[in-house]
């Protein structure tokens, strides 16, 4: 987020809080989605396999890209604050 000089401090705090909440929500959603997509639920042991590790990396990257596209599409519709 860009910093603007002379901004009302209450607004700045609110914006920072909102940004943090958004990032936390995004992170949690990414963890949940990639867990569903990548992890073998048989739980033979507590280790992640090589395949699961690669899947997690790629899933995170793709999820991030989807976030970007959706952001663009919503922005184009003229709606995001």
């Amino acid at each position: 987020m860009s910093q603007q000089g002379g901004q009302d401090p209450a607004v700045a705090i609110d914006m920072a809080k909102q940004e943090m909440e958004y990032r936390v929500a995004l992170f949690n959603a990414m963890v949940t989605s990639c867990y569903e997509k990548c992890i073998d639920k048989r739980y033979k042991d507590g280790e992640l396999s090589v395949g699961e590790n690669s899947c997690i990396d790629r899933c995170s990257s793709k999820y991030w890209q989807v976030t970007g596209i959706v952001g663009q599409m919503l922005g184009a519709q003229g709606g995001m604050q």
Partner: protein
Amino acid sequence: MDPASAMQGLPQDQQAQLMQAIEQMQVRDSLRMYNSLVERCFRDCVESFRRKDLDSTEEKCVQSCCTKFMKHSARVGIRFGELSSEAETQMQQVMAAQGGGK
């Protein structure tokens, strides 16, 4: 999560306020994570109700489930951080390019 970028440019007292808000969010988030992990491992590991106690298979399953989820979450955290800073860098480059184009 990286609060550092959110805090840049804020004066001292506001930083303290924000740190407190962040701590509260972290506590809330830990509790939420705890509950959702219990629900997830219960759902994935416990199938039968012929007895009232977990058998050793179910116990091992829950332990593996927890370990796996936490390792998974840590790995996603690392990638999230990388993707975040990449995006931050790209944004700064775009803004610098726009700023310099007078």
